[in-house]
């Protein structure tokens, strides 16, 4: 009797399992939903004035509009968004934005200049804000924000920069999610304990972008749905965007092949090669606005004080080998400090792999017998889907061939940065990526030591170069500006402490059901124009 009962229960369970529906009918089905499988565990906050990680800024970019924007796929020109036009004063310090009337937030409130002012107030007042420096570097802070950002009428915003700053860089920061405009009335209504509404913005959105937040469950998913009140453009065909948190790229690949994900971001070089062979998918690749480099500290290693030695290192490196073999093609050659895709990019490659030349230079500098140095590398991955350890080993080999003995010290990236930022490294293998798509964003860290960024960390204090960087920073995108950046690159080629190795490619594995996909490293995937079959 008991056995019969057990058997019956078993049959029932199997039966229920077999006929179990996959879920109650959703509002938007798979046809109008895009699922992007990637690692979103780095997201800290969805508050646009605080978000600084890739996962969170990508989501905020869809939910919040800015004064200006970059057209998807073209990062050299700023186009109107919330501001329909703007005037720049002769000295390049005062910007007057004329707002489009009648723009609606997802709440139904109308966007006015007061919302823009409130957005800036939040940036300079929010504590522990990783993104704040993008704005405060222009000299704007909690004390002067009301003089700097003024709203003479509901459709005009006037920003007067307190100190000279690159107009191109300023405008690109106005296109950055850190200045994504929030619905001040709604956010003010949800302030708790003086937090400027930041906690509430982790679970709700208050923007005028094409999408709004459904939910963010940390380590699980970010889900957006179309904003029904969006009126800055036509409504998107895709009504729902889901980023499930998939940290393991093998699992991303599995989801892609089962159709549970439409796009996978994070596949390794070999997985991408396999996807390229599969008829159901294609690989979308574009250069990332970043570069991987070897840094040489000019004081901690006496040899690196000599520019000939620095040049010798640049001749010793086998760039082709790195890109073709190690990266399996997931990188493009770059030796300048401005990546491809930005104004000021220099395609010239002055250093070919030439160990003889390297040895000759070392001899000339008095280091014919070579020398020893420690190379700091991270225990994680380097850009382009390879491990930093493998890349470091390759560098070590290349340098050993010309007599430079390298000791690799692999440490966790936090430890690497701590040492590097304290000017204590000898050699470092690192990556620098874009904050805002203006050449100044790269020229300053690499060339201007007064910024206390990359060249400062390597103790490379070059005053004439710093002045050139400052001068180029203050210009608009003219042939004269391009000439200055060419000069800056030339100086850094011959004298600089950076051996730029490559510019990595961003690769997306995409289902062939997805059409009209446009992706760039600043805007991310353009969900407004893509369609799904």
């Amino acid at each position, binding site marked *: 009797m008991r056995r019969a009962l057990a058997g019956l229960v078993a049959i029932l369970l199997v039966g229920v399992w077999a006929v179990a529906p996959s879920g109650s009918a959703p509002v938007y*089905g798979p046809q109008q939903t895009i699922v992007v499988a990637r690692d979103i565990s780095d997201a800290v906050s969805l508050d646009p004035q605080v978000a600084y990680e890739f996962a969170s800024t990508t989501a905020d970019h869809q939910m919040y509009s800015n004064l200006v924007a970059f057209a998807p796929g073209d990062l050299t020109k700023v186009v109107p968004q919330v501001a329909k036009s703007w005037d720049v004063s002769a000295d390049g310090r005062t910007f007057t934005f004329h707002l489009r009337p009648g723009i609606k937030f997802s709440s139904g409130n109308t966007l006015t200049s007061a919302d823009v002012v409130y957005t800036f107030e939040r940036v300079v007042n929010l504590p522990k804000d990783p993104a704040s420096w993008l704005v405060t570097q222009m000299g704007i802070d909690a004390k002067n924000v009301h003089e700097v950002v003024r709203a003479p009428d509901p459709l005009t915003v006037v920003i007067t920069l307190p100190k000279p700053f690159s107009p191109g860089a300023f405008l690109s920061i106005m296109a950055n999610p850190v200045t994504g405009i929030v619905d001040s009335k709604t956010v003010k209504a949800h302030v708790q304990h003086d937090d400027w509404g930041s906690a509430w913005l982790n679970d709700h959105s208050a923007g005028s972008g094409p999408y709004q937040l459904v939910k963010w469950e940390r380590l699980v998913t970010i889900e957006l749905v179309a904003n029904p009140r969006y009126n800055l453009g036509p409504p998107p065909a895709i009504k729902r965007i889901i980023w499930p948190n998939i940290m393991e790229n093998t699992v991303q690949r599995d989801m892609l092949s089962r159709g549970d994900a439409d796009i996978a971001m994070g596949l390794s070089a070999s997985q991408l090669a396999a996807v390229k062979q599969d008829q159901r998918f294609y690989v979308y690749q574009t250069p990332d606005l970043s570069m991987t480099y070897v840094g040489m500290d000019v004081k901690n290693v006496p040899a690196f004080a000599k520019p000939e030695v620095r040049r010798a290192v640049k001749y010793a490196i086998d760039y082709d080998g790195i890109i073709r073999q190690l990266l399996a093609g997931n990188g493009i050659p770059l030796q300048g400090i401005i990546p491809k895709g930005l104004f000021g990019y220099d395609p010239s490659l002055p250093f070919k792999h030439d160990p003889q030349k390297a040895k000759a230079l070392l001899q000339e500098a008095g280091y014919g017998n070579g020398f020893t140095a420690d190379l700091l590398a991270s225990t994680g991955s380097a850009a382009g889907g390879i491990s930093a350890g493998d890349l470091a080993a390759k560098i070590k080999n290349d340098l050993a061939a010309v007599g430079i003995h390298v000791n690799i010290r692999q440490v966790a990236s936090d430890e690497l940065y701590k040492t590097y930022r304290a000017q204590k490294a000898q050699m470092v293998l690192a990556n620098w990526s874009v904050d805002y798509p203006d050449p100044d964003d790269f020229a300053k860290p690499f060339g201007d030591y007064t910024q206390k960024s990359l060249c400062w960390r390597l103790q490379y204090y070059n005053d004439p170069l710093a002045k050139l960087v400052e001068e180029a920073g203050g210009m608009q995108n003219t042939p004269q500006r391009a000439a200055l950046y060419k000069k800056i690159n030339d100086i850094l080629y011959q004298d600089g402490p950076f051996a730029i190795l490559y510019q990595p490619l961003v690769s997306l594995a995409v289902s062939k059901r997805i059409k009209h996909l446009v992706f760039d490293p600043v805007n991310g995937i353009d969900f407004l124009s893509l369609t799904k079959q």
Partner: protein
Amino acid sequence: MTLLRYLARRAALTVFVVFGVTLITFVLSHVVPADPVIAYLGDHAPPELVEKVRHELGLDKPLPVQYVLYLQGLLHGNLGVSIMDNRPVSRDLAQYLPATVELATAAMLVAVVIGVPTGIVSALYKDRWPDQLARVFALGGTSLPVFYVALLLLGLLYSKLGVLPGPGRLSIYTPPPPHITGMVTVDALLTGDWAALIDALRHLVLPAFVLGYYSAGLITRMTRGSLLEVLRQDYVRTARAKGVPERRVVLRHALRNALLPTVTVIGLTFGSLLSGAVLTETIFSWPGIGRYATNSVTNVDVPAVLGVTLVVALIYSVVNLVVDVLYAYLDPQIRYT
């Protein structure tokens, strides 16, 4: 000593242990040569911002002061604010702990339901083919790396055959049940949401098996060895001599004694499962405290590290206590001393 006095003494000991654990963890976290502020702000942050935030986080105070402040907060039930998540650690734990409890319980159930019968069969058919098969199975559990088993099974059962769903606790198109306990299966059961319950159970199968496989291997071997030992005892021979049917000899007389060491193993394994299983959680996108603990260590997020360590220390203390009490209950020869 009565049970109550024993429990009280153990509770006092636990407080002592927890205090010691937080002190050691605190010291170790600050010996690590990494900077939690840079980990949080990212490498592009200018030095002025780093120092400003360091001050806002109270990390520029002397270490003993920081520790005392932490203890003060602890006494008021305040576990501090996680640096990497920018919200109270208690909220983080409240979000991630139920998922781990759900997964660990399911894994334990799988391990026991597979392990004990397999161990029994293995013992009864010693050296014959069921025993060999069971021992290979157990060997696989204890030696195969968990991520290997996970990726293998996912690749086969999800990607190739499609009989089981992919990562996550629920399918993308299943609306989650209202949050009551934080365990999706329990919440779905409590609110009568059968579709969500079935979906959640289907998603639980693979990670629970993968996680439980190691314990199943252990339990199989323990049960087998222990049962073989017991079956050699005199009282078993006496029972057989009395004419008791073999099934009753094994199940009613031998098993009860044989399971004692197994109970200990089950308890301790459950404790270790409850402290999180980062590899399984990573592969199946299961938002548990294993992943949280690893992230907090990588980011040198001291409040989070301390919070997780505290919780895990408490879990282990409670589990050990339960196992000891259970053992005494099962074996009348044991007394509390």
